[in-house]
């Protein structure tokens, strides 16, 4: 299974994602520069965290016009597995690949800490190695993670079981329905604010993010 990690100017979690796939999951992985337009060789593409284009105008607003994004839309349309983590999630909403938007945290602060999440849906290619309603400890690091959408969209997300992760115990950023991560209806696009790649090995303080990578491999080899 071949992974790709997109690098935008200002991405800063690209190496963390690369390491989680290369050193921990032990699968082939390449960086994809944002100007690249040939994506046929990839089975799973990760949009990593960071501050693409300096977060100018709005987080993710400029990155979605990168040449690679047009091809990523086609990749996702073909059913390719696509994950946006943190800034990657913000880019996916700006690009219209996931509904809603990521707004400023309720308390206006940049929050960097480990939080507890509840796995709400294990019937996705990204979560099949978790247990139903499992509580996992994964760090967040964001200033704009407050998931916001209109009432109809929220109803749809619930009805279609698109809410994949919620904050458990405390909601750090004020997100609607405690949302930490959602997927599209087809289940092949996931966006999440927490960083599973930063919780992929015991030495990092938590391994709770690693089942996400194992899930992807499992769903691919089935």
């Amino acid at each position, binding site marked *: 299974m071949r992974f790709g990690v997109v690098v935008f100017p200002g991405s800063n979690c690209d190496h963390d994602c690369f390491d989680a796939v290369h050193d921990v999951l032990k699968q082939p992985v390449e960086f994809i520069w944002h100007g690249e337009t040939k994506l046929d060789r990839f089975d799973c593409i990760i949009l990593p965290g960071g501050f693409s284009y300096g977060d100018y*105008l*709005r987080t993710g607003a400029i990155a979605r016009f990168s040449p690679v994004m047009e091809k990523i839309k086609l990749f996702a349309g073909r059913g390719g597995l696509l994950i946006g983590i943190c800034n990657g999630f913000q880019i996916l909403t700006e690009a219209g690949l996931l509904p809603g938007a990521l*707004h*400023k945290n*309720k308390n*206006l602060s940049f929050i960097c800490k480990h939080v507890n999440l509840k796995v709400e849906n294990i019937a996705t290619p990204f979560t099949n190695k978790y247990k139903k309603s499992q509580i996992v400890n994964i760090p967040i690091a964001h200033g704009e993670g407050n998931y*916001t*959408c*209109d009432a109809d969209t929220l109803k749809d997300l619930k009805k279609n079981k698109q809410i994949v992760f919620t904050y458990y115990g405390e909601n750090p950023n*004020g997100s609607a329905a405690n949302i930490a991560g959602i997927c599209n209806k087809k289940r092949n696009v996931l966006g999440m604010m927490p960083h599973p790649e930063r919780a992929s090995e015991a030495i990092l303080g938590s391994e709770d993010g690693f089942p996400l990578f194992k899930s992807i491999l499992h769903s691919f080899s089935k």
Partner: protein
Amino acid sequence: MAKVKVYVTAKKGVLDPQGKIVEQALHSLGYKNLSNVKIGKYIELEIKGSKGQGVDGQVNEMCKKLLANPVIEDYRFEVAE
């Protein structure tokens, strides 16, 4: 050349934490007679052409596509010669 001013603010019903905190600060300074403080973005640009020559339509399109995110933001703009 038309001069365009675009104002982007949080949509009604979407929390504007900056506005809320500045409002509290103004209240604590003793200005208790104010409410609904909103903090947004102000964008200026110049477009070739003049009012009525498709400028309004173009600015509206640019706001929808890039300058504002309609999920969380409202926008309005002024076009001057």
